[in-house]
């Protein structure tokens, strides 16, 4: 059963490694990893994050420029239509032009779907999936939301590729800087329009501070809530990062959509954050504060707790959290070493398999187990919506919960999806016993094995397997 200790035989350890640390086995994966499960995880870490090389994808700056151009075009079309309506009737040529508008969803949604495809494909292709799980974890930790604005919808996928993916095994401070200076984040948490009250632009336009990003950096991205910082710290930090903005594509056709340190918006003067003074140094002032936050002991504990909570247990063993926090502090936030420590920790292998997979993890695992490929990414995206974890659309900057209790209510919806997968794979899948062997190996309880074997059809057998406790939990 899902909570029993993992047997020590190599097949069971391999299946366990694939489920707890990865995206679950594809056909043959358990046997492939069984020679040395821990070694296979470390090897995947050694290989590092895969660069997504997809000709359909551009960089965030180009996406931003295209999106703004697209919005202008649409606006112009609307205006022309209004004028035509006002002028009464329309010439033939004009009506043709209108009907020539490209079909399909608006550009931001098209980019979002292309990015989603690459995002899911990387998870489906991974040998085990630990590195991709890290990408998902950190992307959720430093989340942005496509629902904020069409521009963020266009950028959220590129954000993950540019600010998160390259750093998941690098230094935490590098990821922090990349995330907080990325246009997607600056727009999502309103910093792009935060004016230093004493800055030139702030004075001229009578505009001021927006503390949103500064607060969430401290509360969610680094120190953690109630870790000792005050409102004064938040305000000072917000002042420090005024001017961290985005080149507006309309005014800057060349650099539009890139990070812009706009000195005219930046609050002049020195600031004190967490008791430490920071001289006025332009952009470097904010970079220095981020560096301090990245190396703060509270950050080490916060990150260690979140990692252990995500990978191991809803109430992670304190010894594990302490070990990860220490490794984080000792190595200056070297995430490769922190992750290696996680994989090497006995607690990470001993904790009961009680964590319910999050909807996205479970969906990818189901696709891997049943050999389904992405025929139309909208189906995967819609599945995530149905299961309550819409891709890159968290309800709040805190991201989606890593606590199992948050997801257990969605079980009935998972059953609908499992049925759908069963039907898609149809009667062509493996024999039920082989299906269980490939997906769970020795982790399958005899009850699950019997239930799958006695199913009335292959589609039902597959649905029951995907819904079994051993497949739902890890």
């Amino acid at each position: 059963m899902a909570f029993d200790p993992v047997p020590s035989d190599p097949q069971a350890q391999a299946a366990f490694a694939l489920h707890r640390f990865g995206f679950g086995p594809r056909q043959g994966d358990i046997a492939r990893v069984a020679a040395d499960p821990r070694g296979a995880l470390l090897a995947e870490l050694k290989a590092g994050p895969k660069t997504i090389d997809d000709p359909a994808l551009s960089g965030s700056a180009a996406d931003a420029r295209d999106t703004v151009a697209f919005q202008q075009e649409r606006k112009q079309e609307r205006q022309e239509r209004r004028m035509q309506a006002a002028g009464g009737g329309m010439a033939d040529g004009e009506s043709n032009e209108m009907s020539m508008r490209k079909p399909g969803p608006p550009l931001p949604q098209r980019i979002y779907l292309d990015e989603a495809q690459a995002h899911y494909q990387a998870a489906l292709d991974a040998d085990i999936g630990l590195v991709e799980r890290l990408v998902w974890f950190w992307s959720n930790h430093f989340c942005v939301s496509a629902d904020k604005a069409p521009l963020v919808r266009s950028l959220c996928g590129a954000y993950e590729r540019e600010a998160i993916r390259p750093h998941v095994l690098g230094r935490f401070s590098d990821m922090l800087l990349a995330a907080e200076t990325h246009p997607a984040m600056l727009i999502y948490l309103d910093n792009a329009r935060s004016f230093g009250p004493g800055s030139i632009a702030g004075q001229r336009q009578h505009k001021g501070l927006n503390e949103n990003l500064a607060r969430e950096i401290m509360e969610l991205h680094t120190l953690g809530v109630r870790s000792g910082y005050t409102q004064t710290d938040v305000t000072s930090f917000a002042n420090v990062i005024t001017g961290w903005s985005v080149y507006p594509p309309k005014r800057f056709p060349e650099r539009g959509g890139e990070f812009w340190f706009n000195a005219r918006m930046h609050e002049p003067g020195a600031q004190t954050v967490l008791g430490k003074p920071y001289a006025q140094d332009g952009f470097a002032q904010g970079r220095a504060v981020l560096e301090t936050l990245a190396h703060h002991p509270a950050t080490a504990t916060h990150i260690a707790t979140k990692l252990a909570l995500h990978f191991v247990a809803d109430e992670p063993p304190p010894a594990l959290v302490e070990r990860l926090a220490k490794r984080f502090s000792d190595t200056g936030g070297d995430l490769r070493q922190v992750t290696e420590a996680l994989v090497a920790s006995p607690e990470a292998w001993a904790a009961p398999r009680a964590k319910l997979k999050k909807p996205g993890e479970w969906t990818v695992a189901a696709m891997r187990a049943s050999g389904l490929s992405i025929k139309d990414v909208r189906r995967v995206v819609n599945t995530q919506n149905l299961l309550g974890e819409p891709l890159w659309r968290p309800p709040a900057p805190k991201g989606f919960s890593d606590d199992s209790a948050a997801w257990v209510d969605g079980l009935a919806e998972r059953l609908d999806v499992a049925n759908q997968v069963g039907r898609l794979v149809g009667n062509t899948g493996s024999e039920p016993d082989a299906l269980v062997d490939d997906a769970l190996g020795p982790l399958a309880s005899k009850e699950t094995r019997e239930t799958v074997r006695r199913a009335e059809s292959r589609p039902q057998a597959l649905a029951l397997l995907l819904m079994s406790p051993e497949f739902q939990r890890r």
Partner: protein
Amino acid sequence: MTNIFHAPSRRELLLASGVLFAWAHMPRAALAEGRDPRFLTIVLRGALDGLATVAPVGDPDWVRLRGDDALTLDGSAKALPLDHFFALNPAMPNLARMYGAGHATIVHAVASPYRERSHFDGQDVLESGLTKPGAADTGWLNRALATMAPAERARGKEAFAVGPVTPLVVRGPAPVMSWTPPKLPPATDDTVMRLLALYRHTDPALAHALEERVDLAAIARAGAMDMRPQKGGAPQPQVPGAAIKTYFADSAGAAAKFLARDDGPRIGALAFDGWDTHANEGATSGRLAILLGALDGALAAIETGMGPAWNEAVVAVVTEFGRTARINGTDGTDHGTATVALLAGGALKGGRVVADWPGVAEAKLYESRDLKPTTDLRAVLKGVLRDHVRVDARALDEQVFPGSAGVKPMGGLVST
């Protein structure tokens, strides 16, 4: 900008939306005679209880066999008499009406050549048309089309090949096209029950979560379904009857509309799940009654959807095997052998039950437990394929149902 959205092709949409129905075009041979026949196969996965569908009310051993669960003409739910011996489950008034109009035929005590009791293998044999499971990756319906030379297949170029998601019965060399109803089938009551049983044994927290959700769903339906969930007690079958009815009728009706079109396909297959009634079978007022009612609605939807083409249609409803003759200890039936095949359609010379009745006395049962098979299902299918679709008789013996030369096609089923 490299993000060029490409509108998904029809094929991609079809693949993406899953497949329950597949078809290929009709041979010209029949067209040449001025006929334009339609043929649809409905596979009931899970093994249909033939005795609870069409009961031998005239058999003196019948009531003794099934006791209170025996369908009778004067029971609480009155069976619909078909002839002096057989009566139809009261959940199927439309089939009874078709039967009365000569548009339905029942074949009883029928079975595929498969004699074991595994669903998967049984469905393999049923759909492949071979005598052993796991031996083929093509189905008899597809091979039937393939035996008609491509030149004879009208408008074949319009068909799509959709490998891995098509029911086995229509998979194979002849091009098939597939389509699925826009709505997903509801998770059958049966799957939920099996899952709950597993969770209760192994993971009470998941059991609790699922029970709660199922209860909520049942409350939402309670008004229409007149079923109250029972808190705390044994799990009540939460029969999503309305959803299943709608799903069956929608998919069958839509399939019929395709088949009816002048330029549409002529051959199709559908599969309906949920017939594995091990516990609380409910032949007259429970789960099986709901399923049979939904199937009845599907047949009516096909009749309506076909319009005038109904007169040129045959629908064959088949299942992998039957169920035990007796009721088991949980008010259900276990995997058995012989069962019924239901034929419906205006092209039939119907209004009769075809059966070499083996009887249900103790000594007459197959392995002392199942209705004994006296008719080979392949004979029925071969009869329809030969006389209705005009598949060559020799091809039927050798390619469609290989090695079945000894199984003569059943004649006189259709009215041509």
